């Protein structure tokens, strides 16, 4: 078991199910060092056939190193990799079975789109007509029919990315590896290609791993997300699980926006933040008296229909308002705990209806399910 340094009460393994015979890709205790730097620290992971998995994390977290180890482009120092039941730990890249798309696309600039897509097919001594047919099929599949005679530089970034995808899929690999494939593209194109890649992957059923540092991209595309940090896996789970129930402070901070407050468990299901006591639905087994980090998402704030029975209601002053387009992010200072500062998102609708403005004192609430508790690390103060 890798990843998390805290003792977890329920003992749930974070890597997903321990060992399945049906895993298409199985990574066991994988470690990779670059000199004194440990890029991958005993990684264990299983990916099922047909799954779309995202490796998500900040730069330097090891996600690309892990992808390259799976591809055989960087040899691991320790550990094993099984692909479709076959031990490929020490196999050359050409002896594994994958297609890969890089951030730079790595399209051969001196070859036409047709020849790029057919690059891996020509080597199979297929008749020319069969190659041409297959290339045509693939270009139609990625939505680029009739572009075969152009050179890569004559295409837009999004089109180049599709060609790279077609080339990677041409040999029908069992595993598709995508290394930050969308990060070099404009925001609009990125969002469109996101959907197209996902739809294509579903249709072909090809097991896919995508590396990304963009949490939104991972949430939107993946069946499962592998959140990584400093060479370790922090959490593995569906986008919903990762977003709703982050297992570590890192995951909760990296995925989505989170307010962290220093708090103390004062009774089962009750935490105290500088005099303000909140009821939490899941106190994750923290003992009474433990100092913890209390986390909540800004969008979980409740501003309407608060009455005497609403749990966790409190009076707060609106200190600051930042207009962020679809909503406004406010900084709330609870009157009962003036040291704390909580982010809260108000829809434009609420802003207008309730006439929210800086300096106001409002009654707000966070439902007990909105809170997550994390251990307070040594020397860590309030955020």
């Amino acid at each position, binding site marked *: 078991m890798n990843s998390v340094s805290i003792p977890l009460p329920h003992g749930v393994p974070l890597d997903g199910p321990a060992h399945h015979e049906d895993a298409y890709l199985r990574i066991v205790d994988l470690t990779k060092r670059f000199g004194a730097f440990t890029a991958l620290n005993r990684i264990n992971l299983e990916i099922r056939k047909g799954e779309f998995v995202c490796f998500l994390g900040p730069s330097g977290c090891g996600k690309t190193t892990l992808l390259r180890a799976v*591809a*055989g*482009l960087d040899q691991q120092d320790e550990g094993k990799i099984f692909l479709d039941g076959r031990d490929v730990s020490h196999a*050359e*890249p*050409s*002896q594994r*079975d*994958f*297609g*890969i798309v*890089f951030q*730079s696309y*790595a399209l*051969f*600039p*001196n*070859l036409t789109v047709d020849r790029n897509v057919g*690059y*891996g097919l020509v*080597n*199979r001594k297929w008749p020319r007509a069969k190659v041409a047919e*297959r290339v045509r*099929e*693939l270009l*139609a*599949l990625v939505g680029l029919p009739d572009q075969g005679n*152009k*050179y*890569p*530089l*004559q295409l837009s970034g999004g089109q180049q990315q599709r060609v790279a995808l077609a*080339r*990677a*899929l*041409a*040999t*029908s*690999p069992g595993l598709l*590896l995508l290394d930050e494939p969308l990060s070099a593209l404009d925001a609009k194109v990125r969002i469109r290609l996101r959907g197209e890649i996902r739809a*294509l992957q579903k*249709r*072909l*059923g*090809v097991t896919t791993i995508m590396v990304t540092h963009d949490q939104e991209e991972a949430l939107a595309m993946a069946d499962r997300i592998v959140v990584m940090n400093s060479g370790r896996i922090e959490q593995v789970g569906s986008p919903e699980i990762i977003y709703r129930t982050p297992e570590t402070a890192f995951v909760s901070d990296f995925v989505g926006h989170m307010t962290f407050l220093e708090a103390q468990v004062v009774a089962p299901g009750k935490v105290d933040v500088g005099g303000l006591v909140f009821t939490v639905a899941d106190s994750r087994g923290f003992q009474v008296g433990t100092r913890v980090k209390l986390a909540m998402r800004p969008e979980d704030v409740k501003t309407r229909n608060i009455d005497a029975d609403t749990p966790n209601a409190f009076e707060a002053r609106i200190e600051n308002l930042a207009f962020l387009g679809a909503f406004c992010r406010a900084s709330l200072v609870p009157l009962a705990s003036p040291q704390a500062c909580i982010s809260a998102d108000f829809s434009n609708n609420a802003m207008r209806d309730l006439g929210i403005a800086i300096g106001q004192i409002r009654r707000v609430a966070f439902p007990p399910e909105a809170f997550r508790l994390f251990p307070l690390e040594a020397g860590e103060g309030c955020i």
Partner: protein
Amino acid sequence: MSTGLALLASVAAPRTIRGERQVAGISIGALCVILILIIALPLWSLLSKSFESMDGSFVGLDNYLTYFTTPTLFASLQNSLFVSAVSTAIVIPLAFAYAYALTRTRMPAKGMFYALALLPIFAPSLLAAISLVYIFGNQGFLGFLLMGNSVYGPIGIIMGEVLSTFPHALLILVTALSLADGRLYEAAAALGTSKARVFWTITLPGARFGVVNATFVVFTLVITDFGVPKVIGGQYDVLATDAYKQVVGQQNFSMGAVVGMILLVPALIAFVVDKISKRHQVALLSARAVPLEPPVNRRLATIYLLFCLAVGGTIVGSYGVSVWASFIQYWPYNLAFTLNNYDFSNVEPSGWQPYFNSLTMAALVSVIGSALVFWGAYLIEKTKAFPRGRAVAHFLAMLPMAVPGLVLGLGYVFFFNASWNPLSFLYGTLALLVINTLGHFYTVSHLTALTALKQIDGEFEAVSASLKVPFWRTFGAVTVPICAPTILDISVYMFVNAMTTVSAVIFLYGTDSKLASIAIVHMDEAGASASAAAMATMIMATAIGVKLLHIILAHAIFNRLQRWRRRAIA
């Protein structure tokens, strides 16, 4: 759409590619063996020979002791240091000003002036000396300018070296000065900085590494040059002519080896300085730098125009004198036109053969060299297997940078002339001249190839591997076509240098493999200056012709084969 689902089933199981590692391993091994044979072992022979007596027994530092205690030999060292220092001190400021004019002013006809100044690169350094003899020699029309001093000696050597090394310094300084961040100058102007202060605080520091580099390059070129002192040195002995006399004249290999080792010193210092300065240079120009637009200043442009006219005119004029002299009857008494001097059989037993030998040699070096260098650089830069082997190959490829041609030539004499060497049958053949020249010019070509390869997407090999295409196919289908202009550059560089080189091959030629540049030395020794000038003119014309062909060919390649570089279809 059903095609998608059919896709996965439609492709047969992929064939696994075996032998990729083996091919890479064998290639890297072969490259190492070749480089050891053509570079490392000859240098080792030179080193060990300098510690041996004439009969081959180890004598420690005896040879060095003899060298430094023999006044005539030690005087050559002092002479060499003197002419090298003075030549460098003259060339660097001149080349800096010339380069400044080409990069930082709005002087007209910059391209023409650049081309004029590069002329000496296309001729053997011998030609500069031959011209100086015509101009300032006993029958020279400007001899009076020397005020009674003889051109045969340090004056002639320095003038000749200044002429022949000028373009080498210019190339480096133009590169250094063209890397300027316009924002720095705008900031200085906004702060009201004086022109002199801008020069001393921005321009010069920016070009500092170029200046240091050029200084060492020129110093090394001068101290190891054989051609100029051979023709115009007279009784003034320098290290390069000493090495020749010791080895060819007296067959004293040990003493020749000592001279060779001494000649290695400045080049080694230059190599180390270059390494250090490169380490510091990296952050000098950021990707966000704004190119500098020279300000409009008519007066300044005119001054620099006059300066460039003077310098460029002197270079072209000097070389032109030899060309002219090669076409006239008898200098300075009969100036009638003639082609007699081009009938080399009058003065050279083998007639035109040396010229054709040079042509053959240069063509072979150019073709074999560019292929070997590029394949080697590709293996070193783009393959992943055998990191140690690749590191060794890279080190060996970088070695000739620190080794002047004369020194490498001496090493070849000791290595390939040794009776125990099974390769000694090569001695005196054209093949050995090809090998030697290839080794001599390996490093610059290797660096050029590496630079081009580094600019190619590093993931091409990874993509090929994922598609189960062996790397050599991608090399042929993608890398070579993309790098075609660079490969052409390398082959022309090798050709031109093979045509003009003299210092290494002077020790190695045989009766059947005499080169044009060596024939020039012999004709000059025999007093047939006009024929020597004619042969040198032939070399220069050929080298320039090849360069022009290169420019035309590069243009054609760029326009046709490299159609993919253009963003829009024409």
